[in-house]
């Protein structure tokens, strides 16, 4: 069955290559194949999650690093579920989206990469051998890199591709180190052998593996300070790919971390968890602060991905911390939060990127200052985008809230279990920072949605926008529906997730079903269904009441009063203006540099035009990356001087080398 799925992707990829630029089917066939393949994997995942069967597949190779073995256990199944779900929806979406790329690009080639990309993600999740993990991991990176480079005529795309490629390669180097250290201990690269030795692994060694793997996977996850590629690469890719990259690919990093921490490594000391929590919370806060000032919608979404990765890291760190302290059921609780948030983020971030893609598809711009008023032109897109936005804001009763809530409750566990003064204080502090993050997300997405979809269009493109084809809207609709369902019926989902977490953490056996009840009974309950009900039910009640109080409603359309002149888009509040208060409040972080220049005016207050330019800088890049790069560059220049081009110098080098070696030998 797994082989079937894989082979479908293979067919898709090959057919894409063969059909090439010209053929009429070069879009459809690869997409169908990708869809079917994802379907197969979805079935596998459900089979393994619900029936609890473990699927395996083994292919022989001549390489001395062990066989190509695929295993779907519970953990893998969850991430396959997530991937295949988005794979299906995005394939549906791409049907419409790729049409926009037809005349400029070779769709067959895109289809090939698309299949390769999806397949490699599935393989990364299922593979059970270190060497082959690295292979498929890099295949995934390369495929995504090439997809990022699809529109390579643009300079910033090439730059983004370069940075992405380099960063991810360095990350892989660290993952290699991690596997190598385990390999020394275990003697082979099979996960099973790693698992076998994991319990009697020296904690120092385990710590080294932890560090290496964390650095490696953090690069892919794009948490600060290793995030620099993410806000460049994700927007640069075609939007359906951005949806996959931001929604799913970063999750493979999360998968890798969980695989290492809870499967291949012994239960570590508490500093593992603490360090992860620290990284996570920092990138959550900084990430969201950067979302506030973005004009480019997709870049904004990319930074929000950084933020959500930060939240996930925090949750993972929490789980690690709890399990280090031996509080297994709390660890399970935190893990459930991890899984729930991972699932949510996959869905709503996919949805948001698809929405941004639809906007791009019809208006050909990602700059929110050129958009506006789209809600009239693209009703469905904007409706589903609204759902996505509410979900990413973690507002009840949508799925985002459930994940956030679980995390809050789990964090309070730090204070409720007597783990000493520090963690007693840490709980509330972390919650506060997360709350601040949440508030900022709220602000920045109100800005994004309001400026992009509401009020008057700010450009002719926005004015002439039309609704995108049904394939795109329907797939967005599905995503929105999933968001809502996950919001209404979390209990069922949580049962499955806590099952996975139990399998992962083990520890004291509490039956997974009533786990959440156990914890929430004591620490706080939530019945989203009722909240939904009351939210929905009250609306008609209010309508009736108002009707009773005020008689029938009369509505009259009129132009907005703007001091006598007719309202036009130049009077609207711009996105930049909207972000101004927060930009000033967080000036310390964003370091905004503004230039205001009035033109054609004698007195400052009577100018007939005003140019306002403001840019914010990424602190990390300026204070971390730039110096390193420049130092490296200088050294290169210095060493390069060695090749003088003069024969005598070369002979002298030979001379010196010989003498040195002779001295060494003698």
């Amino acid at each position, binding site marked *: 069955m797994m082989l079937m799925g894989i082979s479908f992707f293979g067919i898709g990829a090959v057919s894409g290559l063969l059909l090439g630029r010209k053929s009429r089917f070069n879009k459809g066939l690869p997409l169908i194949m990708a869809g079917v393949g994802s379907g197969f994997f979805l079935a596998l995942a459900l089979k393994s999650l619900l029936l609890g069967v473990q699927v395996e597949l083994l292919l022989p190779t001549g390489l001395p690093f062990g066989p190509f073995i695929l295993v779907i256990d519970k953990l893998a199944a969850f991430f396959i579920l997530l991937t295949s779900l988005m794979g299906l929806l995005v394939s549906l979406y791409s049907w419409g989206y790729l049409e926009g790329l037809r005349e400029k690009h070779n769709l067959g080639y895109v289809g090939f990469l698309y299949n390769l990309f999806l397949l490699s993600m599935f393989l990364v999740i299922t593979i059970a051998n270190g060497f082959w993990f690295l292979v498929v991991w890099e295949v995934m990176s390369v495929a995504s890199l090439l997809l990022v480079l699809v529109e390579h005529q643009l300079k910033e795309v090439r730059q983004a591709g370069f940075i992405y490629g380099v960063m991810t390669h360095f990350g892989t180097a660290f993952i290699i180190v991690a596997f190598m250290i385990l*390999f020394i201990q275990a003697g082979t690269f099979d996960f099973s052998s790693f698992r076998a030795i994991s319990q009697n692994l020296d904690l120092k060694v385990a710590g080294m593996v932890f560090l290496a793997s964390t650095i490696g996977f953090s690069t892919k996850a794009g948490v600060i300070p290793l995030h620099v590629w993410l806000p460049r690469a994700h927007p640069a890719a075609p939007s359906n790919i951005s949806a996959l990259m931001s929604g799913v690919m970063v999750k493979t990093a999360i998968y890798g971390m969980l695989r290492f921490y809870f499967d291949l490594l012994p239960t570590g000391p508490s500093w593992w968890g603490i360090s992860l929590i620290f990284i996570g919370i920092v990138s959550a806060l900084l990430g969201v602060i950067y979302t506030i000032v973005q004009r480019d919608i997709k870049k904004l979404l990319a930074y929000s991905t950084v933020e959500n990765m930060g939240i996930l890291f925090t949750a993972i760190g929490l789980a690690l911390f709890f399990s280090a302290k031996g509080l297994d059921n709390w660890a399970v609780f935190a893990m459930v939060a991890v899984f729930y948030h991972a699932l949510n983020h996959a869905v709503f971030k996919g949805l948001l990127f698809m929405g941004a893609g639809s906007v791009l598809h019809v208006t050909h711009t990602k700059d929110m200052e050129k958009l506006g008023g789209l809600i009239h032109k693209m009703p469905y897109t904007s409706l589903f985008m609204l759902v996505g936005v509410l979900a990413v804001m973690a507002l009840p009763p949508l799925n985002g809230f459930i994940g956030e809530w679980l995390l809050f409750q789990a964090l309070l566990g730090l204070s409720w279990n007597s783990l000493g003064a520090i963690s007693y204080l840490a709980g509330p502090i972390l919650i506060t920072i997360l709350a601040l993050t949440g508030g900022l997300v709220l602000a920045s997405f109100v800005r994004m949605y309001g400026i992009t979809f509401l009020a008057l269009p700010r450009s002719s493109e926005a004015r002439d926008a039309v609704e995108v084809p049904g394939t795109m809207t329907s797939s967005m609709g599905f995503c929105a529906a999933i968001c809502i369902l996950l919001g209404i019926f979390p209990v069922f989902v949580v049962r499955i997730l806590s099952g996975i977490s139990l399998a992962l953490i083990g520890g004291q056996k509490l039956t997974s079903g009533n786990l959440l009840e156990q914890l929430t009974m004591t620490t706080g309950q939530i019945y989203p269904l009722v909240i939904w009900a009351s939210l929905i039910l009250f609306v008609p009640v209010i309508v009736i009441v108002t009707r009773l109080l005020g008689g029938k409603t009369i509505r009259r359309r009129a132009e907005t009063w703007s001091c006598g002149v007719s309202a036009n888009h130049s009077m609207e509040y711009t996105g930049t203006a909207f972000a101004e208060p927060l930009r000033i409040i967080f000036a310390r972080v964003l370091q905004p540099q503004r230039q205001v220049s009035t033109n054609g005016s004698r007195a400052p207050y009577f100018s007939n035009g005003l140019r306002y330019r403001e840019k914010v800088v990424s602190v990390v890049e300026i204070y971390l990356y730039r110096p390193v790069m420049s130092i490296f560059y200088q050294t290169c220049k210095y060493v390069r001087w060695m090749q003088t081009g003069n024969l005598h110098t070369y002979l002298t080098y030979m001379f010196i080398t010989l003498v040195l070696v002779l001295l060494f030998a003698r």
Partner: protein
Amino acid sequence: MRQMAILMALFIPLITAISCYLIGRPVLRNWFTALGVLISFGSSLTVAGQILTGQALTAMDGWLYIDALSAYLLVIIALIGLIAALYSINYMQHEVEIGIIVPAQLATYYLFFHLFIFTMILTVMANNLGLLWIGIEATTLTSALLVGFYKQKSSLEAAWKYIILCTVGIAFALLGVILTYYAAGQIESESVRTLEWTFLLANKQQLDPQVLKLAFIFILVGFGTKAGLAPLHHWLPDAHSQAPSPVSAVLSGVLLNCALYGVIRYHLLLSQVIGSQFSSNLLLVFGLVSMGVAVPFIYLQYDLKRLLAYSSVEHMGIIAVGIGLGGKLGLYGASLHFLNHAVAKSLLFFTAGSITQYYGTRQIARIRGAITALPISGVLLFVGSLAITGVPPFNVFVSEFSIVSGGFAQERYVASGLFLLFISLIFAGFMYHVLRMVLGTKPNNLAIGRESCLSVVAMGIPLVLILVLGLYIPSILDNMLSEVLVVLGGVK
């Protein structure tokens, strides 16, 4: 029969060379070339096939000695020779068309080309270390003429540096040979046999270790110069960038391997005598230095072919590191890397050849949008550079990974760490240049070009190998490698 195959493998190139020189008609010459390389490839395969049975062959009353290692390299040489010859047919034709060379020069080109192949095959087949030395020196002479083939200022300069540096190096190597002979001097025998590999191995315990050590040093510095180990590598970028592209492919694909082969022979001898500690460390150090030195030059590079040349320096370093680390994985990786590097690098040089020929420049800064201007070569250049920088699922990754894991298994953490660091840095440098060359919009004055079919074939063969060997090692190659390992380290 066996003798026949061996002799064919050795002398067919020689015959081809002479006949190519004598034949006047270009078309006929091309046919001869193709035929010759094909035959020699086939015969070398048969030789290799006989090796797989396990025992080494000797021919010409002991002057030629072929064990698994030599056979393996022999196959590589014949393979690269084959594709390089196929590639050069159209390439050189085009050079004539665009008036860089006159038709008369083609004859000399093919003469030296095949002579070059011949000398390399002689090198790997030689049993007598003196003969080995002669072979390597001969490769220098023949290839120097190919390097200086265009007779422009730059090519003459390159050739001059090449020949001077390599001859000096080779002189040191000769001293090494003499010292080896001297070390064996106490053994009673008829003097011709004394320098024979088989003989030396047979009575290694009578060799004088101290002198042999000295000998190894001179050999290392001498052949190391030829193999382009830093800091003796300075001739390499010049020569590789100035030679015609097919020749560059052969130069960095197999010539360096041959020189390294010489070093490895002595390394094996020495480790038989005084244990591998000393020579391994030297090889390790040289290898790491070469990798490290390659980094800045790859970063700040302006010339496409020099870029590839420096990557050859790096890869020779990688092989040296693999040999130096030793152990099953290290040696496996190193011996696999001989093949992987040869294949990938020749592919790169072919694509670079087509691109430079089409753009009329080697300047990286002037090459843009190759993927639109010259689709096949553009894509292959990108794929090739991914492969050469050790990105899975291409073949180089396998060997490099094997070497690294060997390093970790030997608990040489610093070396392995540096190895990984250098590889990643070089990947970054390559991407920086290649992305700029391959992607983007092509210059307006260029139409969309097509490669000639022979060139595509010549590129296709290595491409297939790159892809296949990255994911799957066929059993026959696996047996071959295990035999090679037996020769290299005695590990089965």
